[in-house]
């Protein structure tokens, strides 16, 4: 099952809101709890941060708010959405199970780490294959579905964010700590992902 890491990045590349969760569709002992290993967790914000380079590049070439799948990193895929106020939504998720047999290397990413506990280590074949921009053509339909639902999710979060922004006590680039916002994001995550 896929695990997701969602973050809202402010204009100074600072995260405003972070959420880790997993797909609610699959059956697991604790639905909704992310399955990232510790070694992945400690770099997840950096992975999303690094994707900002690509987001910035992509903003010049499209007039869409949803940028779709923009980057990937060792079996982690990153989808992005940019708001009118230059706030970025980034969703980082692992493709281990959602895209079975993606590419030649069977995509068993090193998430979970190799023996040395070194963390995100390229598992056999994951490196190059997951990095190729046109990876896993075999699961196009699946990923398209995914992309659509992620887009829907982003739209809904955008609504929530705008509502949050309307709050006179909230300033741009402040961390979003409202429990209400958190709950609503989780609900839409459950709905779409």
């Amino acid at each position, binding site marked *: 099952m896929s695990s997701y890491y969602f973050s809202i990045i402010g204009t100074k590349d600072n995260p405003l809101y972070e959420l880790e969760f997993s797909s609610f569709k699959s059956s697991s002992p604790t639905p909704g709890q992310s399955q990232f290993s510790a070694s992945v967790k400690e770099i997840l914000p950096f992975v999303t941060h690094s994707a900002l380079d690509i987001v910035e590049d992509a903003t010049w070439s499209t007039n869409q708010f949803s940028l779709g799948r923009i980057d990937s990193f060792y079996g982690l895929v990153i989808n992005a959405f940019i708001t009118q106020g230059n706030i970025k939504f980034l969703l980082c998720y692992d493709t281990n199970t959602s895209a079975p047999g993606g590419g030649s290397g069977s995509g068993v990413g090193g998430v979970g780490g190799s023996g040395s*506990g070194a963390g995100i280590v390229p598992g056999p074949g994951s490196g190059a294959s997951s990095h190729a921009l046109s990876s896993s053509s075999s699961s196009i339909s699946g990923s398209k579905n995914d992309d659509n639902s992620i887009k829907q999710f982003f739209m809904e979060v955008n609504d929530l964010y705008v509502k949050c922004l309307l709050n006179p006590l909230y300033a741009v680039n402040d961390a979003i700590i409202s429990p209400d916002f958190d709950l609503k994001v989780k609900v839409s995550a459950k709905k779409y992902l």
Partner: protein
Amino acid sequence: MDIDYPSGLDPYAARQHLLHHTYSPLISVQASHNADLHIQRSLNNSNVSFLQFVKPYGNNARYSVPGQTFKITNTQLITKLYPSFPIRFELSLPELLSITRANSSQSQSQSASASSAKSSNASDSTLLPLFSISSLELLLKHRAKEKSEVDTAGDLDEDIYLNFFTKIITSNKLVPFETFNHPISQVFAIDFHNDTIDDLRKLIVDFRNFNFPKFFQIDDLLIHVFILYDPNVGESKDVIEFQNNVKKLLSVSSTLMAIPQGQIDLEGESAVSVTINENSTIEEDLQRISLSQGSESLKVSHSIDLMIKKRLYEYINKFIIPHMEKKIRVWDDSVLSPKKSITGRFFSVSKLFFNNNSNSNKSSPEPQSSSSSNSAASSFNYQENYYHKSSPEQTIRKLADWSLILKDFKYAYSTYDLIKKDYTNDKAWVYVASTQEICIVSLLLAQTQQSNQNPNLQEDSTPPPGASQQQPITSAVPDRNTFRKIRHDIIEPYCDNLLYTFKSRFNLRSYGIKALLVFVELLLCLSMHQNSSWWWNDLIEKYLFKCIDDFERHLVNGGQVIRALLFERLGYSFGKCVYLGQIETMRLVERRQREVKVEVEEGMYMNPHKIRNRDVHFSGLTKYKKSSLWYLLSIREWLELKNYKQVGYLIQNIQCSFNIKELTNQWYDRNDLLLGFAKRCLIEAKESDESKVGPDQNDQTQLEGT
């Protein structure tokens, strides 16, 4: 301000190392016992051989004669001058071969799959890996540890990635399909006082009678003699007479080396220390470490140092370069031109069309005797994977290799391109792969040849002022179509093909790794030279990933140091991927590194909470954040190896993205994130260092004082 961000190995330095350590003439040296003794007495060191002594001096970029120039004339009779022309001194050919043989028999006895019926001769032909990946990891671990212990702050000369790269490209394995490690000259070193002409004759005869592999052409060797003598003993007249006799009786050219013996104070000011691990392979280094021969340098008196540099300069200029030029011209006339001519083409075509029947079972292993080389059938030996030494295929390959050594990259490229078709027709796959590799290399070398821009780098192709300004491709940036052609028609397909051959057909992973790393460095050169990183960045990334993948698969425990180094290189390549001109880049780096302080005019009010303008004109044109991620991953590996010095060095390379000077309240310094963790580790290490090293240093200074 210099745009030296991120800091790391300059790809041009890597390119230069490539030319010095791989694509340079290999000279095999055989010294008589007396010559070894002579050297030992002169250097007051009983552990040194003549070869060990002379080996470092082969790198004449490092040990240079003042004002040296090497004049090379190419086949178009254009002469260029080069400031250095390094050569590699190695063991004599029979010894090199015996090492290879020992290795191959070892690996065969290890692998039970080796067919027992193979004769010892056949075992030569099984292709061995270029280097052992686990040994490499071991060596690098040792080096990294050594480096972290030795306290040389800010010593970036010994970049560990450079170390890694040099070890990968340095090899002395004799293989049929490339001739860079086929010696160009065989040198016999004898002692004038104790060896006679008959001894020398015996050495030469023994050498000539050695059973060389069938792909190695001994006729191309330049036989040369170094005559060592003590200028303080006997008269110089005798030595010259001896030299004349050598010339007359054996018709071998020779060089005199005056090496005085004894009574030299090597501790004094006049001593020069020479590092002995120049050009050493991984195995040699490991052996040296395990035998713990502590000193990595050799003390040589100033006069001997100067003398040997002069003599070698003379030897290269007077003998090696003319020999190579002559051979290249002969081969060009006798082998290459007929092939290029209309009739030659017609013959090769007719061979292709009309000989199919007799050769229809080509793919099946069918040993062919060398005598068939002139017949219409291909002279390729399918069982042992080589062309016979006298076949035109082998000669042309050698011709191209030698012209690459003489830095005529374009000519080499066209020759490789020509011969590649023949290899493909013969299904000589390992030759095809190696030729494809060298095609890419020679193309990239030609594209990255620099004009006189960076004098302190001593670029290989830099003509000194006053030389004929026949510049190859210089700052003129090729247009998009050229790049597209280079990338899509040459680099990508060739690379895929050669990796397939090396990995799947021959199980020679290490050759593939070497090729990939060389491509990466040359592509980095290309993207820096022509400011075209957007063309190459993803390719570099892809190749580095393939390397990481290959190393991972090979090492069970996942070579941590190697991985860290490759991550570092990824970070470097992304950091250099800037889609801006130089001036903008400079401004950008300046701006990022300094805290942008907005000056408020007097009497004006500035709202500190106002959102500032982001530097929009740079946004999306750099990849510093990506680069930082890779550096962080590399840092993580080094943290696990507890090498805080390397961590401290690498962390400098992420300062464009993060504040690294202190622990802040920013998100990235959180306790549960990698950077925060690394920073805390560094601070801890520093504190413990200070508390520990403090008294030690005091001790040291006290010792020095006494």
